[in-house]
């Protein structure tokens, strides 16, 4: 669906883990935050900003 509307599908990831897996949760958060930062701002956010500037 994301690809259809022109958004990089790497922006969404699903993980399955239990409430007892704290260290794994932290690891996922760190890795995924890096992934999103590397991808740069969301194109939807950028479009919103552009419109606000007008």
């Amino acid at each position, binding site marked *: *669906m994301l690809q*259809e*509307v*022109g*958004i990089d599908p790497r922006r969404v990831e699903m993980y399955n883990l239990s409430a007892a897996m704290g260290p794994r949760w932290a690891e996922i958060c760190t890795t995924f935050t890096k992934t999103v930062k590397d991808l740069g701002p969301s*194109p*939807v956010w950028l*479009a*919103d900003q*552009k419109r606000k500037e007008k």
Partner: protein
Amino acid sequence: MIVAKRKPIEEIKELLSGYQKVLNVGCGTCVSVCLVGGEKEVNILNAEIEMSRKMEDNPIEMGAACVERQCDREFLAALDDKVEAYEALMSMACGVGIQFLAERFPDKPVFPAVNTTGLAVNQDIGWYEERCRSCGNCVLGWTAGICPVTMCAKSLYNGPCGGTNKGSCEIHTDQPCAWHMIYERLSGQGRLDLLMKVHPANDWQDIGPRTLIQPGYEKTVAEGQKR
């Protein structure tokens, strides 16, 4: 049940081009069960359209509603107060629901978000197979409960064509020959004599829009029409 398939996003966007405020109406019956046009799917499609239009610098506001059945007046009435605020309507119901929605709100353009694909059985989650073409003259009594109109590529009424091939249809090896299946089942039931009778083709020329009035309701319908 009636099953449908969502139209490609590009086609939907093309239908909505030129509109800035559209109400997307789902249906809580068949299309909800076949995972194409219920409340969840309305919200997903709306998000998709809104994101896409934002990125094209042409934002659109998509409203969401889902009625119990779009083919029943009393449920459509729930939309009466909402519709006025929108330029156009989009429906995720089957073709019947879309038309009834358009009939109730004749001043608003109504767009289909799905393609109605037929009357099907549920083989597994998300897997539907057509079984009935709604021909209006059911022959299942003498075809062992297997519909030759739907299951035979040529909709034949009196046995297989020359293309039957060891149980498969000539159109594809994965497509079973309906008449082979009918023969096998009738054979198992000891009812092969049914195949000896020649059956005339269906009267397809009378397949225009049909009206069904159940026995006992004729008077009520006549009174309603007078009103």
